[in-house]
């Protein structure tokens, strides 16, 4: 039984520095593993579309005609799924999050110049996607 059981703790807090991180005055430093947003190395991308197919929220769109890889930032749930499935490791998870915005933004990345060599790869990947479960890249 006590009436001022937390007294010590609050008096200590009163005279010590607050625990507050002071964001945004002091920017937050994120952990290396923090899942923030997806980066694409568009030049390395082969537009295979696996990421688009695997994305649980259908945030990623791959337009092969326009040679464009786009992500709806407001649909991405940072599950890291696309990164794990990407056959050419062109996707990566950055540790900073997408800024809030007044619009639902979609970031599109177009390949600078068409690379003919990239073309066969998606076709090679296609049968893999149809297989039952054997697409299980290791981390």
């Amino acid at each position, binding site marked *: 039984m006590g009436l001022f059981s937390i007294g010590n703790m609050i008096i200590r807090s009163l005279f010590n520095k*607050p*625990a*507050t*991180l002071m*964001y*945004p005055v002091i920017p*937050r430093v994120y952990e290396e593993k923090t899942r923030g*947003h997806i980066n694409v190395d568009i030049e390395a991308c082969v537009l295979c579309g696996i990421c688009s197919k695997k994305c*649980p*929220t*259908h945030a990623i769109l791959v337009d092969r005609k326009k040679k464009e890889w786009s992500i*709806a*930032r*407001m*649909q*991405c*749930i*940072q*599950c890291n799924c696309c990164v794990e499935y990407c056959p050419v490791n062109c996707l990566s998870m950055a540790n900073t*999050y*997408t*800024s*809030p*915005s*007044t*619009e*639902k933004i979609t970031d599109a990345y177009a390949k600078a110049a068409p690379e003919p060599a990239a073309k066969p790869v998606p076709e090679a990947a296609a049968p893999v996607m149809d297989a039952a479960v054997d697409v299980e890249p290791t981390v």
Partner: protein
Amino acid sequence: MMSYVTKSPWIIHYDGSSCNGCDIEVLACLTPMYDVERFGIINTGNPKHADIFLLTGSVNEQNIPVIKQIYEQMPEPKVVVAIGICATSGGIFAECYNVQGGSDKVVPVDVYVPGCAARPEAIIDGVVKGLGVLAEKRAAMVKK
């Protein structure tokens, strides 16, 4: 004209149909590490006192009228901040039979805060962004 709406934004938080990850992060914003009261933010819990409506989670048949009502009961100027992917687009639940989509189907959303779950820093940024909209709305109100 100087407006005080940006100096004292009071929030109300309602959980649509989220996984409550974002809700917990909204609450975390109030706690010592993030302490949004630094910006004068108070979690009022009462739409009639609130300036900013923090909405998490997607909308469904049952909570649509509730969300509408909370929004309608807030006095002008008011801002809606949709927090998390579910609130912006329905997220991973978009294809569920009882999910109708993001909160913009029900109320006009002013700021979208991405993240699953949205980080406290993102929520703070989102609210700060909302303050700008709030000031604009206040200015428009004065003009009228």
